[in-house]
């Protein structure tokens, strides 16, 4: 899980062009959107595409988005739970 959180942080920083941030700047329980990180609705949509493209996880409603994008932790939990399982 920690590995996934770290990976997500790095991908978000790269995708959203957060050039002035390091992954340690994103606290595990900090609000992702509307807080100090300065992310807005367009960033949320970028993250939606990132999740679908990289993890095959779909966020197709605003309500689900609000829930999932609360913090990097809630996001990682959702990805963990919903990513297609690779069968051995």
């Amino acid at each position, binding site marked *: 899980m920690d590995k996934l959180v770290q990976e997500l942080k790095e991908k978000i920083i790269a995708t959203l062009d957060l050039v002035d941030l390091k992954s340690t700047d994103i606290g595990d329980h900090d609000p992702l959107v509307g807080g100090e990180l300065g992310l807005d609705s367009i960033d949320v949509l970028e993250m939606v595409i990132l999740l679908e*493209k990289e993890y095959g996880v779909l966020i197709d409603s605003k309500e689900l988005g609000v829930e999932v994008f609360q913090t990097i932790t809630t996001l990682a939990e959702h990805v963990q739970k919903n990513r297609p399982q690779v069968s051995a």
Partner: protein
Amino acid sequence: MSARRAFITGLGIVSPAGRGCAQVLQSLQAGTIGLGPLTLFAPSSKGAYPVGEVVDWAPDATVPRTHALALEAATQALADDGRPPEAIVLGATTGGLPLTEQLLREGVRDPARYCRHGTGTVATYLAERLGCTGPVYTVSTACSSGALALKIALELIRSGQVSRVLAGGADALCRLTYFGFGMLQLIDPSGARPFHRDRAGMSVGEAAAMLLLQAADLPPPGAQAELLGGGFTCDAYHPAAPHPEGRGAQRAMEAALADARVGPRAVSYVNLHGTGTPDNDAAEARAIHQLFGSPLPPLSSSKDAFSHSLAASGAVEAVISTLALVNGLVPATPSCQQPDPDLGIEPVLRAKPADLELVLSNSFGFGGNNVSLVFGRPDRKAPARAAPAAVKKLAVLGSACITGAGHTAASLVGLKQGTSLGGVCPLAEVTAGLPARQLRRMKRLPKLATALGSRCCAEAEWAPPPAAIFVGTAYGSLSETADFLDALDDSQQEFASPTDFVGSVHNAVAGQLAIRFQATGANLTATGEDDAFEQALFLAGQFLPSQEGLGLVLGVDEAHPLLTPLVDPNALADRPADGGGALLVGLAEERAVATLAPIFFAASATEPEQVDSLLAALGGSERIKERFAAVLVGMPISRRSAARPQLARFLAASEFDGPVIDYRQFTGEFATAAAIASVLAVALVGEGLLPSGLSGRADLALAGKGILLLGLGASLSAIEVCA
């Protein structure tokens, strides 16, 4: 002098709910929904959603679809009048993109095939075909473009500049818009249901609508309605989302009503912007309640039946508003069977007869650009009003340019040494001194514009920030457009960046500048061909007097390695150049570093007599010789065969014998090179010296004289820069 009134004497429309007014009226009466399946290109594997395509139509395949739509609407609008219009003002956002997308996918790399890419080419195509030799303007303010074009046309008429203007909007459906709005999750898969409880987005579509506006003091024969007023504002809030309280929208409506000299109670029907997205409809509802209180006039949105045709929509709805007035009909929003109780807006569900006096029509867009228009019955008694003072002189308080040599100071050094400034300034240098966070989500064009705007305003640090923004850009954000289309292709049309889509609209830069300076006044983006900057400057002259505060006029284009050589006929593949210039302008001349007077602008100057009109506008030979020490002339390389005889005629008739400087030799060949020339002229006039490096002669003291900026080629312009 009293202002002339603008009567609508011709209407043309090509839309998903009908071609021509008769069909459109029938659709309005019957409540026909013009949505259908996408046939123009393949959807993604995730599925397709309904669109508003113009069907059962065989367009001229030798031009891009937008051009064909626009010409058909224009031909309808002029059918009764028959004469060429004296001016054309068009709102367009996609221009030749439908064809460009196809050519790029086919791997075509012949620039000749891309010659009608630019949004400005739609209006110049109309001018060519219709024989218009007056001013031709193209504005690109996303979904408010068509409505803004009508507001500009109204001012051209009021100020007495022209008597017959063809104005409207045109946008064809293309992959960028279809997939772009999809990536933003702004599409309702069941088709747009504006103000519905379960609304889930818009339906993207295409259309063209053109209106012939005629100047008169009393209704001329054939007058169908009068365009009474218009207002435009900027949210300065977010690149894509509306202000949640609809503040900018409310101010646009208030400005339109004030411009029409009527109060909200006089409005008998409101044609809402009503896209069907949750946010737009909620914000618009709030603005409507704030403005009208209770009870509300009858209202409806046309974007379920006609889809959202983006730049065309404001003009489509102007035609609908006119048809409503003429036929005594309140159009409906047939899809809104269950209005959202939270919004308190109940659109008319079935078209109904009513005696309408005044119609208010709303068009809002990305970039926070809001436009409202007021239409009235032609026989309505109009209060007398003074003609707007067309501004002859703007006071320049600050300026900045970016060239291949760097920022203003480095550019001036190069100029004095006589070295070429043409080139592509590295991004790190462009953005030096700007906080990284402010540049997030920006590619080359917005970075150039942000740097220009910041440095220009910093130069006049004593002055308040600009309240109005006027941007000229011929080709807009090419990097964002190219990256979005590439990503679509690379992912079987499944994934492309929403940020790139929002950034790809031509007015993205003006919206970003508005947010930066909290500039909530007039906000427009002109997208002509080689004259995009001149258009923005002339429109600034038109609108600044009615604004409170200062204006920022900016011309900027980027050199994109792949697209620019294809779409800009003047781009030199081996010598790319870009950059631009910015001017902070006001009306009061105290503390001005120079003054700038936009004197003459006429496009499609195929007739040599136009040069004589330009000379006359400048006051003739004696005044020209007396007033100007030098002429900076812009002659785009692909237009030199037209520009040379124009220059020869100007020099012969004016007997001007001072230095004549072909400025594109210094700035490099790119569309808004005139913006750099203007900033350099301002600097030289300020210093009072024309350096030998520039003129090829000895250093020349200007001795109180100014510099004349001439734009030649496909359009003619004259701008005076004086101390």
